[in-house]
């Protein structure tokens, strides 16, 4: 069952330098209890996409397209309806919990405020009991309700944020770099927690991250973004074992792991989103680019069930496969 369908979502920012096409025609679906990993580097539009899903973008943003949740387009909803959807249907956790928790409010006030605005009929006592239960479910003691955010460690704060997101048992949890500001051991703890609550609360998760290792651990499906577009999307195994898009190949090859011997050096840097290159946006950096790549934009096309790639040479690459992973690029760079 589809929880949410995003269709041709475009998010443009008007700036003094021109229009920034942060998200430029992105489409995907998410199934129940599925984790979709959205990966990409800084400036690829992944965080804008996360905010777009909750419609919490700054006023300078122009949004078009559709986000279908339970048969209705949430982009057509008014503020009051949206307020209900946020938190009750779609909840969000951010990278840095310290900047999202109010330093002057105790943890319990964060919970009470949320209960008060969404469930005014609930008494304070009931609300506090539920809050305590939620905190315990994420591995934080009930007493934490009386603490201020600064009294908690980074891991505890992120757990508290997760508990807050779970209040109304949302259908979808959007996690934007949830562990980036944490240490590796705490990161592993939080990831384990997210996997557990996903099962317990029957949620779907959109996990936005630059860390491919986290995606390997968490995701069922992966979407790779480059310069505001999805360039490849498919099941985790397909993307990680036989990536087709040259960018996906390069990205995977440049990850440093304990097994790394050679690293891939992708030439160049991501483009400016005000003046993206014509044709395929990766073409100027692509070792396979043909003339057509600089003129026309490749559509996102299915090459096998559930696995789509936006590349004119996808078929060829899927067969010949893995220029980067064969190590030619890394040798060349040496």
């Amino acid at each position: 069952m589809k929880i949410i369908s995003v269709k041709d979502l475009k998010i443009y920012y008007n700036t003094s330098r021109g229009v920034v096409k942060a998200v430029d025609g992105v489409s995907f679906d998410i199934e129940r209890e599925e984790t979709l990993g959205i990966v990409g580097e800084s400036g690829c539009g992944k965080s804008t996409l996360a905010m777009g899903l909750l419609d919490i973008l700054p006023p300078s943003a122009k949004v078009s397209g559709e986000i279908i949740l339970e048969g209705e387009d949430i982009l057509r909803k008014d503020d009051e309806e949206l307020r209900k959807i946020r938190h009750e249907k779609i909840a969000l956790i951010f990278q840095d919990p310290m900047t999202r928790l109010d330093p002057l409010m105790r943890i319990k006030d964060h919970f009470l405020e949320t209960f008060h605005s969404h469930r005014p009929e609930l008494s304070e006592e009931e609300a506090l009991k539920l809050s305590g239960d939620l905190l315990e479910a994420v591995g934080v003691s009930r007493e934490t309700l009386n603490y201020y955010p600064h009294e908690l460690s980074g891991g505890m704060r992120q757990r508290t944020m997760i508990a807050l997101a779970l209040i109304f048992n949302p259908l979808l949890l959007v996690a934007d770099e949830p562990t980036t500001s944490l240490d590796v051991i705490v990161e592993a703890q939080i990831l384990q927690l997210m996997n557990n609550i996903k099962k317990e609360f029957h949620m779907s998760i959109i996990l936005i991250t630059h860390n491919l290792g986290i995606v390997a651990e968490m995701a069922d499906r992966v979407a790779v973004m480059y310069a505001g577009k999805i360039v490849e999307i498919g099941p985790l195994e397909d993307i990680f074992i036989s990536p087709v898009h040259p960018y996906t190949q390069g990205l995977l090859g440049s990850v440093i792991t304990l097994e790394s011997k050679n690293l891939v050096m992708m030439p160049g840097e991501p483009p400016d989103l005000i003046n993206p290159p014509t044709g395929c946006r990766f073409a100027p950096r692509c070792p396979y680019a043909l003339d057509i790549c600089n003129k026309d934009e490749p559509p996102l096309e299915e090459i096998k069930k559930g696995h789509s790639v936006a590349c004119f040479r996808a078929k060829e690459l899927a067969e010949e496969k893995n220029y980067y992973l064969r190590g030619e690029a890394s040798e060349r760079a040496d």
Partner: protein
Amino acid sequence: MRPLKGLIDVRDLRVYFPIRKNFIEEIFSRSRLYVKAVDGISFTVDEGDTLCLVGESGSGKTTTGRSIVKLVQITGGDIYYKGINIGSMDEKEFRPLRKELQIIFQDPHASLSPGMTVGKSIEFGLRLHKIVERDRLRERTLEILRSVGLEPADYYYDKYPATLSGGQKQRVAIARAISCDPRFIVADEPVAMLDMSVRSKILKLMVDLKREKNLTYLFITHDLATAKFICNKIMIMYLGKIVESGPSEEIFSNPKHPYTMALMNAIPDLKLEKREKEIPRGEIPNPLKMPSGCRFHNRCKFAMERCSREEPELVEISPGHRVACFLYE
């Protein structure tokens, strides 16, 4: 006293930061509270080494790095550079040596002056340390820019940092560090804030520069995978102490300290087989409430009764491989 060794020889280094209290407390209480960021560590860095210092936030790795280039006041211990004790030097005495001991910071967005062009930023050090004649300044700067891969150098010379990407800024920071022909560079998480595809390029640049210019690195990172890629020796820190140190291959193939093992276990890798990870409970404790005995004992699955009472010494268990843990006594 054992004979001095290596390019850098650090002995029993301690760096304590006093906790500021409010006025009333300051008057009435005698005792002062300290955060013991680095609490008695000794190590040497040999010429040509890349020594990685690995640990989580709060382990004291950055403080260690900064004390070697004298950016923090040390509380105790000695730091020898080429046999000279720089630990006790004041700023004036140290100045001639500063050009030989350089640092690259984590955040390239914050470490470059926004009001100075790339060229000026690099020339500043060249001029201060009188590395080249005035009329050769520009020429030398362009050479340095080319050596860190910022080409065309003329183009980058007049750029302001705000117009550069993170990777380019970090290249400028590296250019500045190597501009005065240093012997030794402390690199404090130089790639932590960069994207994956940029990270690999910066690491490669650092490896190339090291080879070309015979540099010695103290490379600070929280990421064991990066450490393994770049270093030949490694040191793991936890709450101001070294818990394990040794040659890189030895540590990675044969980790001994439970904390090292936990760190290795926790790194997300690209493997798809989902394994059940054993993750230690809790987080690195508040350094004001330092655990008794072994600092890791309350998170350690092997902890014995003794671990909460006594602090294990760092002892050599095989050539060059040292561990501070009672399991290996």
